[in-house]
């Protein structure tokens, strides 16, 4: 595979009253694993079911019920780890995180604190301006999701929906390598893209299937480099954790707002307190949720109901072998095989479906032309109607047909656009349409010559002007095109006009 190489992005600083400040951001991304059943029960994970209809006895923590690991969830976590080029731990273990809440029936969440299934990895986060940040992944562990408490259905009562209780989440923990709000959003977008390629998480942030806790701290220029040299956190500022964010836009806003809050505290002579905060998008501020003193003591300990999870290297190897081509590889290949620009390759590899569509169009045809048509014409048209690529009325074979007609010189670019519109709205085989509707361009030089002669004969004054100023030849080309209903081959018209005018 060809490596994608990028410049490291410049660090965005925020100006305080006294100094410029840098941001240091680490994220814990919670991604719901795509699986039919929950992590430790056979209950369905289907979204939008009747409240409390997807609940097994163990999910409701009935007395004496025991968890049994869902092997598919383990496979998905391993797949995700491999996709993030991370170390897979053949032995991992589950721990209990103890706290009381009505939507946590067991009174503990089964998680992996001490021995996560996935260790260190790395994600290349492109920022779209030719730069990219390498973000180190510290770990990925599996854990149970909690249920949902509903407080606004009744003035006196709260309700609990356990459908989501026990659904498998992957918590993807990054190192504090993210240096600004845009990078944070790009990081999540990249994770989402990779997981969608892998089929391990649908990345739906609205449904809460992808959420993030964002750790933000500030430091003076130079401090971060010292941290990177030593991995000693004391070089960095005190961090605050902004909990449970499920919108890219709000994540960026929250980081900015939180950084400014911290700058104001530090420049005012105060100290940032380590705490958990919530972002209020209406007020545009972060609020303390609980301080370090109020922090829960989760009393983690190994879950005695579950044996350590041991997996075989051969099984991991099989999963690795079956991995799909990932975004970075695909992009590099598109650039090298089809001669695409980094931008076009990025757009086309944004999701598997687009990439697949493009490849089907480009296969055996002009790659660059195919990219232009897919991105500019097709994506543009789909966007207008709010459709995605899977809903495209034009198949790759149809679009490929249009491109072939262009390459062969049968139709001009302008006619091709008309043809595309016909195929898009009415369907049909492009070459047949061209044939039937007489859209084929005129390449018969005799016919073109006649048309040119007629235009020259009718406009002697223009001929004189053009001879003095060759740039005016374009006017003759336009007239000829008009006279032939746009079907004349523009290249041939250009040549004949130039010859006849003696230019």
């Amino acid at each position: 595979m060809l490596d994608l190489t990028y410049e490291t992005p410049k660090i965005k600083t925020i100006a305080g009253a006294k100094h410029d400040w840098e941001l240091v951001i680490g994220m814990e991304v919670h991604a719901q694993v795509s699986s039919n059943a929950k992590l430790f029960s056979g209950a369905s994970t289907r979204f939008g079911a009747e409240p409390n209809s997807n609940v097994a006895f163990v999910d409701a923590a009935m007395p004496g019920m025991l968890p049994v690991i869902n092997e598919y969830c383990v496979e998905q976590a391993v797949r995700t780890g491999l996709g993030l080029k991370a170390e897979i731990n053949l032995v991992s273990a589950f721990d209990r995180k103890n706290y009381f809440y009505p939507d946590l029936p067991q009174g503990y969440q089964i998680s992996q604190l001490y021995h996560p299934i996935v260790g260190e990895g790395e994600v290349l986060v492109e920022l779209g301006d030719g730069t990219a940040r390498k973000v180190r992944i510290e770990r990925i562990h599996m854990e149970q999701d909690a249920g949902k408490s509903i407080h606004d259905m009744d003035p006196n009562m709260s309700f609990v929906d356990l459908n989501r209780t026990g659904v498998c989440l992957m918590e993807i923990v990054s190192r504090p390598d993210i240096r600004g709000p845009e990078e944070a959003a790009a990081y999540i977008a990249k994770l989402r893209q990779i997981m969608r390629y892998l089929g391990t998480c649908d990345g739906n942030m609205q449904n809460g299937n992808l959420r993030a806790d964002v750790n933000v701290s500030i430091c003076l220029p130079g401090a971060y480099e010292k941290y990177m040299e030593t991995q000693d956190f004391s070089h960095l500022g005190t961090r605050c954790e902004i909990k449970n964010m499920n919108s890219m836009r709000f994540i960026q806003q929250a980081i900015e707002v939180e950084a400014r809050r911290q700058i104001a505290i530090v420049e005012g002579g105060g100290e940032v307190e380590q705490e958990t905060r919530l972002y209020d998008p209406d007020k545009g501020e972060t609020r303390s949720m609980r301080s370090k003193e109020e922090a829960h003591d989760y009393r983690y300990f190994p879950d005695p109901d579950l044996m350590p999870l041991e997996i075989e290297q051969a099984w991991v190897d099989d999963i690795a072998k079956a991995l799909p081509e990932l975004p970075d590889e695909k992009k590099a290949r598109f650039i090298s095989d089809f001669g695409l620009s980094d931008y076009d390759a990025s757009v086309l590899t944004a999701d598997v479906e687009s990439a697949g569509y493009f490849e089907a169009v480009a296969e055996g045809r002009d790659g660059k032309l195919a990219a232009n048509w897919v991105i500019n014409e097709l994506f543009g048209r789909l966007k207008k109607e709010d459709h995605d690529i899977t809903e495209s009325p034009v198949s790759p074979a149809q679009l490929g047909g249009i491109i072939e007609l262009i390459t062969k010189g049968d139709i001009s670019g302008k006619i091709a656009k008309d043809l595309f519109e016909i195929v898009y709205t009415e369907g049909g085989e492009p070459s047949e349409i061209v044939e039937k509707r007489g859209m084929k361009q005129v390449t018969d030089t005799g016919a073109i010559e006649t048309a040119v002669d007629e235009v020259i004969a009718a406009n002697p004054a223009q001929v004189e002007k053009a001879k003095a100023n060759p740039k005016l030849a374009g006017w003759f080309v336009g007239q000829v095109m008009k006279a032939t209903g746009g079907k004349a081959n523009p290249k041939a018209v250009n040549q004949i006009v130039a010859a006849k005018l003696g230019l």
Partner: protein
Amino acid sequence: MSDLNKLTLAEARDALRKGDTTSVELTESCLAAIDAADALNAFVHKTPDIALERAAAADTRIKSGDAPSMCGLPIGIKDLFCTKGVPSQAASRILEGFKPEYESTVSQKLADAGAVMLGKLNMDEFAMGSSNETSVYGNAVNPWRRGNDDAPLTPGGSSGGSAAAVAADLCLAATGTDTGGSIRQPAAFTGTVGIKPTYGRCSRWGIVAFASSLDQAGPMTKSVRDAAIMLEAMMGHDPKDSTSAELAVPDFEAMLTGDIRGKKIGIPREYHMEGMPAEIDALWAEGRKMLADAGAEIVDISLPHTKYALPAYYVIAPAEASSNLARYDGVRYGHRATLAQGDGITEMYEKTRAEGFGHEVQRRVMVGTYVLSAGFYDAYYNRARRVRTLIKRDFETVFAQGVDAILTPATPSAAFGLGEMTDADPVQMYLNDVFTVTVNLAGLPGISVPAGVDAQGLPLGLQLIGRPWEEGDLLNTAYALETAAGFVAKPGNWW
């Protein structure tokens, strides 16, 4: 036949097969005994309808020649086991009114083997206790009494109801569970046999959890042969319990030859406790002699970390319990406290759990919460786990030296009086487990066999500890000990 309830499982089984009696007759005999024994407070939920229905079904199967191993045999089930549609409260107020929609694997296996459930048996709340005095139903009473003394005695705990019921012939056998000695200590206090198999032998699915890494179910019976029959029916791999062992279940009864010639029996020197009653010491010496006379080789062994077992146990068990019992929060089932105007979720938890849990359970939840808390975790929980590893290694070492089984006293005393320990330091009560907890920490099989009586006529038990997964061999050694001891005493019926 008369006094059918006094039969052993093996005797009743043979009588049923011969057609000398029916399961309905057996069951009726037990139900009558149960009704006459309210003073023992052993059965806390009677299920005569279920019992008679299952007995009739068993009789049909026996007639058709299709009788599984325990077909038609009436037994009691400890209240810790979830039984479908039947109250299952772990003897706790917090599970008030709880009737599970499911049947525990072990009680289901017994039902599948044809056993007839007579009802649910008293126990210490959440299996936490050694005297059955922490039960929300009040204590069960030991059918045994001291000499001419009418003072009520404890049947032991936590499986006190099971032990009392078997000793008083209210049922032919009963299920128990053992986290630190809860089968073996009450068996010893009531002159019955109780075996805790290797951890992983019996599925924990559907048994209310106390300390998950220590809990094991086992039978409480009138003889070693009965223990073999019933244990075989209870155990086996269960995919619903991730800690259940994927091992075949041997025919234990066929292994009861009584031949233990050449077996090496270890006597651990660390089990000589300071201040241990002379009678216990004497019984232990007798047991040694009996096994030697039967042809076993007696060797002195050392299990050097024994003295750390009890403290380690009383860190690990409460730690797990504090987490296991978090689910009893009043939200979904069981007791919920009446709330005052303005009370929120925290008040609901606090009031519900304060009302729902008894003092001993509260004490252990608090101890467990403390030992897992930040800053103390390493000093307590992690250290206890390391001790556990060392204790396990002690056993592995002696087994590697060729020891087949280890003989120890089952308890440091005979049954004590109810209420006697009420004002004592809780640690005094915990000392009851001193000979039994090591076995749970190491996950080994252990059996208590009645081997004699003390000066006041109370039964005393000896414990045999076996190699992991070798319950068959352990049962055979126990069978030899039982035969040699010839314990036949029965409590007089005063109730």
